[in-house]
């Protein structure tokens, strides 16, 4: 135990940014948008006026004279006609006028139109910017209102083993990986006992639960157990606490041996001849994480079919097509998905996405996991992708 003081800080977003302020800011931005809209409509009116005049200037010289009502002041008219239809007096600006022909006037109007269009474009771009700003403020306000928290932990570059101990969870200091494994294993034993107590009434259910475990699935019950037993969370510390600091691949390699052991201790599912090879493989790098999965799945599916036959029998058929499609679409993604689930199971962080997963995972057992193990990815897939795939 390093010092027992959590390194990170957890602040509700509402304490950093008050909901009201964010909403006010959004309101102000909306007002600014409205102003711009007014301006834009003003300019648009100019543009349509300009276009109409452009057409008029084109058609006026077609005839020598046009009968019109000549305005005399604002409130009176004389009947009259337009003469010299190819002569226009155009305002150049600042009180200067120029005598122009129809064609020249059309050119001037065209240039004016271009200027107006560019003005409108810039206004629209500005409005888009403001709208983005407004939506940002609004989302911030709603997030703050929803009680989102900001978790911040300073990154201190240290030895990996020390990092684990300072991960912010009260957890005994583990120096070596072996010790970590042993620790995790004992924790798993405790966890298993608790689970057995809770599930003793229903053996079948219990088994299914355990198979979920072995299939690296997380469900509500597991989460409950973890919550009930803080120490179990503590034992998971190395993987959960480092969540922000270790890459997904690193994590999965670390959690996998634990998992395997857990599985073995739990339901004694894994055949004896499989375990040595798994252990041997798990001693080395990246690929191993996916290899370990295969025996797990195999054993699970075997036992699962034997014990709670009907349920698991039909599940594979349901998910088969989906599985194949997934496999066809992104062969490289599949192992990553599995790994994402490991992560979830042992960080004990995100629960809600895992409902209804176990049966699917069990069904994915033999053939798919073989494929996935042969296509072990060499680079971690983005978290977003993993979540998407995991769902």
């Amino acid at each position, binding site marked *: 135990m390093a010092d027992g003081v959590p390194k990170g800080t957890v602040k509700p977003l509402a304490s950093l940014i008050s909901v009201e302020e964010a909403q006010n800011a959004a309101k102000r931005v909306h007002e600014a948008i409205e102003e711009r809209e007014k301006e834009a409509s003003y300019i648009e009116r100019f543009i349509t*006026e300009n276009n109409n005049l452009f057409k008029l200037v084109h058609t006026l010289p077609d005839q020598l*004279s046009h009968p019109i*009502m000549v305005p005399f002041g604002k409130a*009176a008219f004389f*009947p*009259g006609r337009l003469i010299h239809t190819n*002569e226009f*007096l155009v305002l150049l600006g600042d009180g200067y006028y120029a005598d122009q022909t129809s064609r020249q006037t059309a050119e001037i109007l065209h240039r004016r139109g271009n200027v107006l269009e560019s003005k409108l474009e810039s206004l629209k771009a500005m409005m888009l910017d403001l709208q983005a700003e407004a939506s940002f403020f609004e989302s911030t306000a709603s997030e703050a209102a929803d009680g989102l928290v900001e978790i911040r932990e300073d990154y201190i570059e240290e030895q990996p083993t020390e990092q684990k101990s300072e991960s912010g969870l009260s957890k005994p200091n583990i120096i070596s990986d072996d010790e970590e494994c042993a620790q995790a294993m004992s924790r798993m034993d405790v966890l298993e006992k608790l689970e057995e107590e809770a599930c003793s009434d229903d053996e079948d259910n219990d088994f299914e639960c355990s198979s979920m475990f072995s299939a690296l699935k997380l469900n509500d019950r597991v989460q409950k157990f973890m919550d009930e037993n803080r120490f179990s969370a503590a034992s998971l510390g190395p993987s959960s606490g480092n969540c922000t600091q270790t890459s997904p691949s690193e994590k999965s390699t670390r959690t996998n041996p634990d998992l395997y052991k857990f599985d073995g201790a739990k339901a004694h599912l894994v055949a004896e001849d499989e375990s040595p090879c798994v252990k041997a493989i798990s001693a080395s790098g990246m690929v191993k994480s996916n290899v370990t999965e295969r025996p797990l799945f195999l054993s699970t599916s075997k036992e699962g079919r034997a014990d709670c036959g009907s349920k698991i029998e039909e599940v594979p058929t349901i998910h088969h097509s989906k599985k194949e499609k997934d496999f066809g679409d992104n062969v490289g993604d599949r192992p990553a998905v599995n790994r994402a689930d490991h992560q979830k199971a042992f960080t004990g962080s995100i629960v809600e996405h895992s409902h209804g997963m176990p049966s699917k995972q069990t069904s994915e057992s033999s053939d798919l996991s073989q494929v996935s193990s042969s296509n072990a990815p060499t680079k971690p897939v983005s978290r977003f992708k993993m979540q998407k795939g995991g769902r």
Partner: protein
Amino acid sequence: MDSFREEKVKKFEEFVDLRLKPDLLHAIAQRDKVFEQQKVFSDLKRNIENLEKNGVTCLRTSVNLGSEVYMQADVPDTRHIFVDVGLGFHVEFTWTEALEFISVKEARLARQVEEYTHLVARIKAQIKLVCEGIRELLQIPAE
């Protein structure tokens, strides 16, 4: 008691800001519109008088086509003039008829201006009254 007074003051201030001042602005804007009309008709009157004095029967002028683009226009006969009598109607008058109409119209506009001036004064008085009420509530001595 204090909170009650504060409430009252707030209510009065809201009344001034949200009711009386917009009303005042509206009345002033209306009056300005009438002033504009007055100016238009007085201009027209002067112009017609000029035409009469100079005996102009044909006229060449420039017409604004929009966006400050002008074109020459020819009026062959100026003795008949179409004057806006309101609601979008234009009546063909001779010069004398037009001048008669304009004098009637001007009188009416002057009356309207007077009405609006009264209205503005009344609203201003109300604002003053409410402000005095607020002052009394806050027990600030009068200047």
